[in-house]
């Protein structure tokens, strides 16, 4: 966690740092629990000394948690609080994928941890009221940390997120684009005050060009990826994959360049073993945490007078707390606009259809009366089927995927293309199919396209209004 982190950190370094953070965090409760004299076997080197070794290399001495941080936290010692804030900051930042350094201002660290805990639904008011200088609240933080271990699955997320990549990874979720957008918002102030509109046009053209060349490069990359996958199919020892990735292909050519990768794999294996170990020892931890809660209950700290804080915190109307909330509210607005427009359209359409329907029925009344009820039932059935997709579409998608996936070429055998055919029993791999992702992306594209068109339409109205105000000039839109 040296200063290099804030700028462009190369991927492997980041990965190793993250892993060390996990190691750090894991190393943290091993010894401390031992000091609590809870039977906490430390037979394995992974929980004890070994993972801490890289951590020591990377972490400045100040940030390394003392072994008895947890014990101190149990008794709410202020000495432990700073360490705990930092720990949570580091872990949560990793999950949220933001940039961070060890030297970030403590106020910002505290702020972020509070925000992230709120975001994940940790609603303990005592935590939110901790002082911003990080000087107190180690026990509250211990509770929060424990809650994070369970509810969002902190460790699992960290492991999954920092997975060493040996394949050709590509992202599968559509939420990746939030990041550049938000960055854009912050850096809008241009260098010059007055800008020639032609400069803007030029920039716009340049942007298009970059997109274009990016597209070209993507396409080329696809071609190359596909070739590698195709030509090496059957070579990989992992039957689920079947073929090499780009990295692996190059690894054959230049094994000497991949020492670091091997190390990363090894250390990840160590992490995973530590995770397994943790799973074994988990009961001890949770029982211990219960005793922490018991202590608190005895002290009467568990729930404090609710009224006080309710009054303090329930301010009349919170307009906006952060850009995240603004963004979300904006999305909601747009969505409800869309839906309302659609509703209106449907309303009209249905009214119209009904009218014609009654007309038709009236003219053919005698003809249809008897037989139609049977067909009507059949039709209802089929429509019901048709609409079933629809309702599932509006239901929350449980397995919406996020993050990176390894691209795998599977030949077109019907069972394997779906990704959840026969193989599942053995591998139980969360294999999304490209076709599925493509479909999702197409829909996404369509709605974005519509949003853009709406914005442009809005502009057209405004500009037409302006042009109307001119005398003697007619504006003809293209």
């Amino acid at each position, binding site marked *: 966690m040296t200063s290099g982190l804030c700028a462009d950190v190369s991927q492997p370094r980041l990965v190793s740092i993250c892993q060390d953070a996990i190691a750090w965090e894991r190393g943290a409760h091993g010894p401390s629990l031992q000091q609590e004299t809870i039977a906490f076997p430390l037979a394995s080197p992974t929980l004890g000394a070994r993972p801490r070794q890289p951590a020591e290399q990377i972490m400045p001495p100040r940030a390394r948690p003392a072994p008895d941080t947890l014990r101190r936290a149990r008794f709410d010692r202020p000495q432990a609080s700073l360490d705990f804030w930092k720990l949570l900051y580091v872990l949560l930042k990793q999950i949220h994928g933001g940039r961070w350094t060890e030297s970030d201002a403590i*106020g910002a660290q505290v702020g972020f941890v*509070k925000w992230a805990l709120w*975001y994940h*639904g940790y*609603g303990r008011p005592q935590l939110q009221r901790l002082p911003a200088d990080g000087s107190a609240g180690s026990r509250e933080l211990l509770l929060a940390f424990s809650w994070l271990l369970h509810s969002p699955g902190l460790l699992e*997320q960290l492991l999954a997120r920092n997975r060493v990549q040996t394949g050709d990874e*590509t992202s599968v979720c559509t*939420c990746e684009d939030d990041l550049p957008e938000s960055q*854009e918002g*912050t850096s809008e102030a241009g260098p010059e005050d007055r800008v020639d509109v032609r*400069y803007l*046009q*030029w920039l*716009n*053209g*340049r942007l*298009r*060009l970059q997109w*274009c060349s990016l597209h070209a490069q993507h*396409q*080329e990359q696809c*071609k*190359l*990826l596909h070739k*590698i996958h195709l*030509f*090496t199919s059957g070579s*990989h*020892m992992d039957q689920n994959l079947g073929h*090499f990735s780009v*990295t692996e*292909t190059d690894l054959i050519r230049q*094994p000497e360049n*991949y020492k*670091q990768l091997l190390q990363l*794999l*090894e250390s*990840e*294996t160590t992490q*995973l073993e530590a995770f397994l170990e943790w*799973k074994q020892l988990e*009961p001890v931890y949770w029982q211990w945490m219960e005793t922490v809660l018991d202590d608190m209950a005895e002290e009467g700290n568990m729930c404090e007078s609710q009224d006080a804080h309710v009054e303090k915190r329930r*301010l009349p109307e919170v307009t906006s707390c952060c850009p995240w*909330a603004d963004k979300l509210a904006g999305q909601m607005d747009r969505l409800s606009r869309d*839906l309302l427009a*659609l*509703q209106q359209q449907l*309303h009209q359409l249905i009214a119209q259809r009904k009218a014609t329907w009654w007309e*038709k029925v009236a003219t053919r009344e005698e003809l249809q009366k008897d037989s139609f009820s049977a067909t009507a039932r059949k*039709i209802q059935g089929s429509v019901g089927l048709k609409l079933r997709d629809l309702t599932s579409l509006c239901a929350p998608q449980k397995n919406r995927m*996020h993050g990176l996936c390894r691209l*795998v070429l599977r030949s077109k055998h019907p069972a394997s293309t779906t990704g959840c055919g026969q193989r599942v029993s053995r591998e*139980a791999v*969360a294999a999304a*199919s490209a076709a599925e992702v493509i479909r999702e992306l197409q829909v996404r594209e369509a*709605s*974005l396209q519509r949003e853009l068109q709406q914005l442009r339409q809005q502009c057209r109205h405004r*500009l037409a209004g302006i042009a109307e105000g*001119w*005398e003697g000039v007619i504006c003809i839109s293209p």
Partner: protein
Amino acid sequence: MDANSSGGAEGGSAPFHRRRAGPASTSGCGACPGRAAGSSWDAGECGTRAVAAPIPGGPRGAGRPGRWSRSRARGPAGRGRWSGPGAAAPAPSLFVPPRDDEEEERPQPQSGSSAEQEDRPSPKELEELELLNRALEKALKVRKSVLKTPLETRGATGQKWAGEAHAPKKAEEQQVPVSVEDVPECRKVRAGSKKPMLLKKPSPYQLRAPYRTDPDVKKLQRKVPARCVSQGPRTAGKISSKGVTSKEGKSHRTATGASAREVCAAAELQETPGLPESAPNEQQSFSGGDSAAGKNSTVAGKQLLDAGKKSCGFLGESSKKEDTASAWGRSTSPGTGTLQEKGCQLKLPLSYRKAYSRNSRAWERCRLCQTSADAAAARTRFVERIQTTFEFCSPKLTPSPAEIEEELRGLQDVPSHLRQYVEAEPADHSTLQGEYESLLTLEGLQTTVSQCLQKLQLLREALESQLRLCPDCTGDVGSCSPACVPARGQTCDSADMLAVPLLCYSSLQELRDLFALKLQVSMLHQEIALQKVMMAELLPVLEPRPLLEGSAGLFRAIHSQLCEGGRLFPVLVRDELLD
């Protein structure tokens, strides 16, 4: 009529001046993006000019390397002109045209992923390409005659540009003046690599060798196209596309380190197989990077000699190793042969295999590892106890912000889906049954819409109540924008998270569609964000003022930017009748 009515030309050429005058880092071709913004014909002109330049084998060029035959035109552009480090855009002008056609065409491949023909251009496609190019040429002619002025104003740069277009014809000699330092090295390398050249397929060797050291890569690639242009455009195109890959690799490398290297390395590994038979679009599409590589050439020039030696050395080495050198024909190249033929027998190094299988076994064990019953019980007790002290005592009823966000994400495309259904309903039914079915469907859709609205309302309320508890983030804007955090409910088991995430694709076309769509989506995101900013910034500029002399141009520019994405311009007509 006002002079303004001259269509897109004015808008198109104007930025050009600005560019030249301004301190922008690039020169020459860089003007073209602006022109592209003006109108698509400008773009076409750009491309066809390059094609029309006296390159040997011109007619073939019209059909083969793609609509705009960028690969050839790019050569000169890359030659030492892009020496500025700030020139991030690879040879803009040459890239403009594809942008346009891409826009029109992209939806098609996306919708029909079954279209496999991309891999190999059908004769029909080629024919279309040729037609298109001819049309563009014609358009150029027409345009020239109509718009003498803008072309003339292009002045020095235009000439220079044209001069460059000639460059390939004269091949090496021409190259000499462009970047002086290159010359000697270039010669030397040439001498060194004579042999493979005679074999007609020098590229694989040369390219494979140097990618260990970046500068070498650049140098070689830079040099190779120059040489090969004289031989024949085809080779040139091939080689330059290589240059691109490595360039691409390079840029990645700076950003992501090792993973970048993969791309680069891999690209070189198997690039050769594809190229001879690959579709023209690909070659062309990739060629852009070459100029970027060329940009680096001046810097790297000094090391060229070294590189040359190295590559020669490697050549010998590799030909020994692969033993196929003598058999090289036009259609097969050894590099490809290697991966294609031996790909199936390749074995990963033992150390890696060991590490990998240990690693994947560990993942598997973690995935299958169950929380023990007493741990789960203790954990649940703890969590429940602590959640009773939350402000929302039952977190299940009030979703967390993360869950709200995720649910909203699930809803965001519902209107699009529903619209598809609505549009799919035919307006007219011949049968009564059809009419009935359609009516029922529409009613079903309406119900769905209201359900979604309800759900949205719930989410909105949940968000509001959550926001009341939101800690105020103190000004630090960036700090609280979660990037794609999967919201996992309490029920989620770790198995999901720890499974190997795989994305299976079944064909090249599918892969291409996937990447194209992903880019398209992120482009749209960006475009929307830009549109919003521009609306906020540009609309107020126009609002208050009456039409003054000169503000007509501004109006047109802004109109085009805001309403047409910079592609079309409105026409302002002075209504003479009033006078």
